[in-house]
């Protein structure tokens, strides 16, 4: 599937490091066989030799839920009408998910697919964790963060024997790492990276796709926001973290690898947004990045891990 689409990646725009697929958008609400307000942000996972996506659907009511999207033969996707995960009516979760569940980031860890998602309730955002083995059924593990924390992603391996996640607590708008022995109780939080004054990621940052293990450590795609007088601009940045001590930064690119430029990235419910919560690496070192565009459709782009690493380590020369 990916291979057949590989040929369709067009020349980069404005020298962006990510090449966009010329069939974008990959998923738009016009393609759905049910009514909804919006589709945004796709978690991506390699499952049975295919790339499955977990997209966030904003329903006409305004509530959000997470839906499974399966690849078609033409490279496009079919989105299930029935939610894969919807706000729970169970008393433990109800008040924390009453406004929706969204932004599923999928991590394959020890034989199970774990999904960290944002639960939105009357008290604000929290991270929640669910798991599946087969993408038919899903089981909630727990609400795993304090309130006001969002954009959580589980590492695909234990670090020094402990589970670890990246996250974005509301306070300080930075990316943090938090550890756990059992996926239920979490602690030992440390600051990883913060917004940089004067840069494209000056206002807020948060993790995009779950960390990807590479030779140099952990490759992390993150979203960086710059607030302008007309609203925010969301771009995609990259950082490499130390394998054993991910709070230590090996290299952080000074420039984004993807910025809103195309029409569907510029125009939508939340304009000027590219938001990457799913990425899949293939054996040739190509990284397919699935990103929500303007909170209104899903797009895909590709680049090589090699080029990202080069920019994380050497980006001082870029301007």
């Amino acid at each position, binding site marked *: 599937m990916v291979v057949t689409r590989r040929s369709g990646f067009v020349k980069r725009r404005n020298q962006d490091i990510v090449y966009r697929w010329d069939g974008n958008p990959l998923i738009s609400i016009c393609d759905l066989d049910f009514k909804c307000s919006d589709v945004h942000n796709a978690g991506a996972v390699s499952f049975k030799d295919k790339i499955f996506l977990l997209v966030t659907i904003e329903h006409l009511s305004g509530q959000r839920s997470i839906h499974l999207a399966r690849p078609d033969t033409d490279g496009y996707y079919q989105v299930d009408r029935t939610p894969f995960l919807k706000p729970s009516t169970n008393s433990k979760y109800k*008040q924390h998910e009453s406004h929706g569940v969204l932004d599923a980031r999928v991590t394959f860890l020890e034989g199970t697919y774990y999904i960290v998602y944002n639960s939105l309730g009357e008290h*604000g955002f929290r991270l929640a964790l669910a798991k599946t083995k087969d993408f038919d059924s899903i089981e909630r593990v727990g*609400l795993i963060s304090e309130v006001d924390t969002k954009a959580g992603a589980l590492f695909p391996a234990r670090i020094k024997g402990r589970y670890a996640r990246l996250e974005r607590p509301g306070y300080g708008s930075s990316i943090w790492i938090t550890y756990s022995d059992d996926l239920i*109780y979490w602690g*030992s939080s440390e600051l990883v990276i913060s917004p940089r004054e004067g840069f494209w990621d000056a206002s807020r940052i948060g993790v995009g796709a779950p960390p990807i293990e590479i030779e140099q450590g952990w490759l992390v795609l993150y979203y960086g926001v710059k607030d302008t007088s007309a609203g925010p601009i969301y771009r995609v940045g990259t950082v490499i973290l130390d394998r054993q001590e991910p709070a230590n930064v090996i290299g952080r690119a000074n420039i984004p690898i993807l910025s809103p430029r195309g029409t569907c990235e510029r125009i939508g419910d939340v304009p000027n947004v590219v938001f990457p919560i799913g990425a899949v690496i293939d054996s040739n070192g190509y990284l397919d990045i699935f990103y929500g565009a303007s909170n209104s459709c899903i797009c895909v782009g590709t680049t090589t891990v090699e080029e990202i690493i080069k920019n994380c380590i050497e980006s001082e020369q870029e301007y």
Partner: protein
Amino acid sequence: MTSTRLQRRDLLHRWEGNPAITVEDVPFRANTVFNGTPVVTENGVYLLLRVEGQRGYSFFALARSSDGLHFAIDEEPAMLPASEGHFALYEKKGIEDPRITVIDGICHVMYTAVGTCGPRIALAKTHDYINYERIALVSEPGNKDGILFPRRINGRYARLDRPLGLGRGSIWVSYSPDLINWGDSEVVITPRPGYWDDFRVGASVTPMETREGWLEIYHGVKMTSAGPIYRIGVVLLDLDDPSKVIKRGDRPILSPREEYERIGDVGNVCFASGAVLSDNGDMKIYYGAADTSICIATCTLDQILKDGF
């Protein structure tokens, strides 16, 4: 002497010797002293004080008393922000608002570590009130007012804390098997629109186990055009599940009225930070006044349970 007219408005009785501790009583140079947490020892009542130094960051000092009213402060600070190691980054702007809980016979201090990336809750312990061993940073950033319960609840340690959800500021309860890793957070109480605590609430005093439930003395904030008003309120929580509120007082039990509560670095603040309950049911409540001094108010447990709600 406080006038009878003022006394009638508040359930708590102000000690005639207020303010009990001011910066004049601190043996080293400091800006202000406020928010002291008490612990009963075999040598009397000790108060671990929050002192704000003149450079602008806070740290802790120890005050000792035989009667719980008249205190003498140690010559040197008891605990300073970490200057090296893992905690240094997160305590760069000071350590604030210590809250002592004795659990399993060990004196634990939960406090707010203030770093460049916001406040976090941290935990330390001490056996002599002079040396403090840091255990862990136990919350994410943006969280403060952490207080450990004095016993495990259904086998787990528990704390009250105050994350800033939606900028509102509610009291939550979180649990831990080991005091290091925390989870299962649940909401306890939220600000109430139209009430004296409609802007923010936070835990103030280590929860006290009573026959009717956990008594929590908390601070409630109302925002006015001239700034916040901090008052002291009470809530009773279920002994087995502190996220369940049994009852919550409609009115504060103490509000800023006296000059030392109205005037200071942060005026209009009564901020309870600890209480000592005697065997006969008499209670002394220690509170910071206007972020500038430490005061004492008294009551009985029965009065609070009867008239506080």
